[in-house]
């Protein structure tokens, strides 16, 4: 046993423990000072509320960038009736959780479904009262069901989309049927971009190299995860960049820095807008998919405002706006897609309510830190 091991394995004496705990207790107290046990549950009416709705939101999903301004604006009637919400922007679900853990208070947050359990575990959210949402019965029932926890509607699903391989058709020739294996193709060394996300990179390995249902977490034993880690470390040399912001990836594609990459629908739109010859693939192992929506802050003082705001988001008008503008799907099934570009509808299966059934839809990750640690080791190698 090394000296280091001896140092750390030594049991702490009562005195040492108390000293160590003194700092902890002090800081715990300080952290707790910001806490508030009062819950903003439904009471009174919307007129009794302050109306200063605060939303932790993705850039581009805020009024008026989302839905436009004026009579046809998706969120306009909410703004006209009450007030423009205050937005704080998030760049990832993890960052949003971190902000919440650090003490920031929001009435609404726009996470993705695989993180809802984390929000519940954090004690930050409360269930919605779906009777206050006039458009709730128009939502895709499978997405609604997928987002319930213990039968409670902590999450209102809104936008969804696919994650898949996008490649330049004029530069890349897939070997046979298109596969996620393009990410590991030696022929395109230096022209590949992965998403800097721990879970998805292991999932892709699982579905391709591992040949198993990667969303069945029981399959991820320590030796399997170790194999995946070693493989990704070896293949990392093919990768030009791991993008953490979609804009970075879009810029890299537009500037021909990369030809193959992990992409959402928005990147396909950006590449098409740049007049690039790109393919949004339907890999033989299946696309991954995501579904985001709203969770309601436990301490909200704007309970009714929050419901009114979400109701606008899940309206058919909202669905009709997001599809042609962001190339994302919407959970409102009453949307008319006849006016949307047919190529777009076909590529993203926007007229097919069961489209997500064929993809690997994102799910809660019970041991996220284990994957994250392995992924950090891949990046640090």
């Amino acid at each position: 046993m090394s000296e280091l091991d001896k140092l750390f394995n030594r049991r702490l004496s009562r005195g040492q423990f108390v000293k160590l705990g003194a700092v902890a207790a002090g800081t715990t107290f300080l952290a707790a000072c910001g806490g508030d046990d009062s819950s903003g549950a439904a009471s009174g009416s919307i007129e009794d509320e302050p109306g200063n709705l605060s939303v932790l939101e993705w850039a581009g999903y805020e009024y008026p960038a989302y839905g436009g301004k004026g009579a046809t604006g998706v969120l306009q009637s909410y703004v006209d009736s009450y007030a423009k919400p205050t937005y704080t922007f998030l760049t990832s679900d993890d960052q949003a959780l971190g902000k919440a853990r650090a003490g920031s208070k929001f009435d609404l947050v726009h996470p993705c479904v695989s993180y809802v359990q984390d929000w519940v575990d954090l004690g930050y959210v409360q269930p919605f009262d779906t009777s206050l949402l006039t458009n709730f019965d128009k939502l895709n029932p499978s997405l609604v069901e997928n987002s319930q926890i213990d039968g409670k509607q902590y999450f209102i699903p809104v936008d969804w989309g696919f994650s898949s391989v996008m490649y330049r058709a004029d530069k890349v020739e897939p070997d046979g049927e298109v596969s996620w294996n393009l990410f590991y193709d030696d022929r395109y060394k230096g022209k590949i971009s992965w998403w800097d996300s721990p879970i998805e990179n292991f999932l892709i390995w699982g579905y391709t190299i591992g040949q198993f249902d990667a969303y069945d977490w029981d399959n991820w034993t320590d030796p399997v995860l170790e194999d995946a880690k070693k493989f990704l470390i070896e293949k990392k040399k093919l990768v030009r960049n791991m993008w953490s912001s979609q804009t970075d990836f879009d810029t890299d594609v537009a500037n021909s820095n990369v030809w193959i990459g992990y992409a959402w629908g928005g990147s396909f739109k950006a590449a098409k807008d740049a007049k690039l010859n790109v393919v949004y693939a339907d890999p033989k192992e299946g696309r991954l998919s995501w579904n985001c929506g709203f969770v309601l802050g436990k301490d909200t003082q704007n309970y009714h405002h929050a419901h009114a705001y979400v109701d606008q988001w899940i309206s058919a008008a909202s669905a009709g706006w997001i599809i042609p503008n962001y190339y994302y799907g919407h959970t409102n099934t009453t949307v008319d897609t006849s006016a949307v570009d047919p190529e777009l509808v076909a590529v993203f299966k926007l007229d097919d309510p069961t489209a997500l059934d064929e993809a690997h839809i994102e799910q809660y990750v019970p041991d996220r830190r284990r994957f994250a640690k392995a992924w950090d080791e891949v990046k640090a190698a």
Partner: protein
Amino acid sequence: MGTAGLVLPPTLWLAVFFLVPVGISAAYSVGALSFFPGEAALSLDGWRDFLDGSAYLRLFWKSVKIALIVSVASILLAYPVAYYIALCAPKRKYVLLLLIIAPYFVSYFLRILAMKVILGDQGVINSFAYWTGLRAQDDPIPGLLYSQTTVVITLVFVFVPLVALPIFVSLENLDRRLLEAATDLGASRFTAFRRVTLPLSLPGVMAAFVFVFVPTLGEYFTPLLVGGTDGFLFGNSIADLYGASQDWQTGSVLSLFLLFMIAVLMAAFARFISLRSVAAN
């Protein structure tokens, strides 16, 4: 207002925005606080895993190497500029100084993004290489973008103006009579520089080194934007641990370790940069 009145506000500021966060980080690092409620359990496992040859520790030494390269390169590039402005251009020195710091009128983010435009496969340098026939189309100069080299180039570009300032100040305050005396005693210009100018400007050089080395050691943003898979540094690991990993315990361990190492470094440099010499400058 007495001395206490003057000292109290900065002391309070330091306590609230430095000591308390450090204390909270310390509590996280030993498991006294946890990300999710109910997970807290006192343990030194985070420290043990980190110090016992973890990937993070190797990454720290990689960051030290990059920080050293960036610091030395920045000083080597900035010194001649500062020398020229301070000693060779007395009438135009403030105009030149303004030009040197002009990049700081543009945001840090934009300056880094500008490097992507310059160093990209269709960027200024590669386009020139394609145009002159030095490189074939679709065969850009390797490693120009998304590499450790890119991180070094970008950070040097960012830091050179900052580094030039303390060196300029130390050279500007140089007693010129010493240089005249050296010349009178038969020293060549190079000898006068080596024996008089350089030693007397060392406090400025050391200050410049610290100005670059310390922020580069914890640098996160530049590697994220232009580092690619090869440019991942210690600061990026800290950001990941607080972000995607939701592992605030290990993140706090890494943060405190970085803070400790910087404190040690500052103590070492305090021997070279006395407060008196900084005040004199």
